[in-house]
């Protein structure tokens, strides 16, 4: 089975500025793939190249084994796409939009739209001009999912959704994965990526900064260790230890960041009278920010 998405040296230039540069990406069939990065990093450019809305400056992209440019109609037949920003015809209802898109896809009915609308608590019969920001986003999700495509490409899918609906959406994503479908999810909301994605690519200034399983990324996170002693201790003792950074001392408390094993820290602490030891595991946000910290970039 070919990769769901494969890009080779994919590059897009906007004049002298590079949107993405030599991007190599492989998304396996049946996985939920997170594509994360701050605004302007190149996430949307990559997605628009996959959809053939933009044409690459160089390199190529294949989607479901098909050339994203030359065979774009066949590619789009098998894709459900939610753009990061989209407009809706304010006079139409959601039902009319889905029916229209269904006809363009050769479907007679509304497919899974009524079921999705019920789960997302969306009224398909209201004119879309009367819908709130969140409900318009739900329309976007329904139109991406209603024809049950083998590949879903979702650009910032939870924007505008309330937390309950975000939970429902993430559940729908998991169910789609369980059905063997592939989900390519671009986001800067890292908590949702952490909750649902099997692998994560981090893009920085148009280039791939990291491509790991979510678990591996989380294991790379730097723990914050706080040590409380019975009396003040010399903090420089800890600063010299391997894998330790950001050591600070306040009274009888020493805190530090650690991205190697804790054994050396515990042994050093044991030379004094230790009252308490606590370890905090940062979220994926902090891992992500680590890639953007110029003073300590992670090896890619």
């Amino acid at each position, binding site marked *: 089975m070919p990769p769901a998405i494969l890009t080779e040296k994919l590059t897009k230039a906007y004049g002298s500025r590079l949107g993405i540069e030599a991007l190599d990406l492989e998304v396996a069939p049946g996985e939920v793939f997170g594509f994360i990065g701050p605004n302007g990093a190149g996430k949307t450019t990559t997605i628009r190249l996959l*959809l053939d*809305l933009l*044409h690459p400056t160089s390199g190529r992209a294949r989607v479901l084994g098909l050339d994203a440019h030359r065979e774009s109609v066949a590619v*789009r037949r098998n894709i459900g796409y939610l*753009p990061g920003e989209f407009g809706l015809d304010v006079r139409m209802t959601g039902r009319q939009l889905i029916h229209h898109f269904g006809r*363009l896809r050769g479907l007679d009915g509304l497919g899974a739209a009524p079921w999705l609308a019920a789960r997302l608590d969306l009224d398909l019969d209201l004119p879309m001009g009367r819908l709130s920001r969140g409900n318009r986003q739900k329309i976007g999700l329904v139109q991406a999912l209603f024809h049950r495509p083998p590949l879903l490409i979702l650009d910032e899918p939870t924007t505008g959704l309330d937390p309950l609906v975000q939970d429902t959406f993430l559940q729908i994503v998991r169910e789609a994965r369980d059905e063997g479908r592939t989900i390519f999810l671009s986001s800067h909301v890292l908590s949702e990526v952490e909750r649902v994605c099997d692998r994560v690519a981090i893009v920085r200034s148009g280039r791939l900064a990291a491509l790991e399983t979510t678990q591996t990324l989380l294991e790379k996170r730097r723990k914050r260790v706080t040590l409380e002693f019975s009396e003040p201790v010399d903090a420089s003792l800890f600063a010299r230890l391997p894998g330790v950074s950001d050591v600070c001392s306040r009274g009888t408390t020493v805190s530090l960041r650690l991205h190697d094993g804790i054994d050396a820290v515990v042994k050093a602490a044991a030379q004094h009278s230790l009252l308490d030891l606590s370890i905090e595991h940062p979220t994926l946000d902090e891992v992500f920010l680590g890639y953007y910290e110029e003073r300590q970039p992670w090896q890619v």
Partner: protein
Amino acid sequence: MAGLTGVWILVAHQLRSRVRSTVIWGVALGALGALYVALFPSMSGLLERYMEEAPQEMQQYMGGLQGPITIEQWLGMEFINALIPVALPFLVMVIGARAIAGREERKTLDLLLSNPLPRWQVVVAGLGTMAVSLAGVLVITGVLTYIAAPVAGVALSPGRLTAALAAIWPLCLFFGSVALLVSALIRRGALAIAIPGVILVAMYVIDSLAQISKTIEPLRVVSLFYHLGQPLEGDFPWTATLLILAGVCIVTGTAMAVFARRDIYT
């Protein structure tokens, strides 16, 4: 065949959303046509006397009318060859501008093109929507204008009225196709209306001035209004119609080619 199905689905969808504007345009122009027909009995004598006393340039500008003025001459001079071909192209220019650039500005093009549609179908569907909307407006205009004739006690040939309105159809469609081309080239809906609008007005001014100025007369050939002829008087411009339709095909083909090659932005 599958391509034509896609085009038809798009055209049908766009026409449904354009029914109201088509009816409004048709009724508005038809009401004006009916007004001109109703005015004819009282205006014909006045106009005849005016033409006898008017300066030579003005007589030329009015088409060199002589003797009793007929309803066909009156309608051609005031309505069919003057008002409709200047006003109606703006209806299709709006459709052409909205087909691509308008959708891009409203951010609805991404969703549409996420469906399995080749881009050329969006262009052809835009042209199809223009052609059918235009035909709808002209039919309503023709019917209302013709209905007014017996009420006003005027004998108006339905065949000639139909031919005259049919001759306007490709002319309007040409300006619509230019709007479609600009719309396919750049993501500015206002420019897609303004550029063909300026061409339309320039052609109208050239054709009008050329009738009274020997200096400008050689330029008249570039104006589509010149080639419109006098179809209401039995002079249907077959050659011009076919050439204009060929121009529509070329401009639309160019629009398809440029739209297929360009990037679409949000």
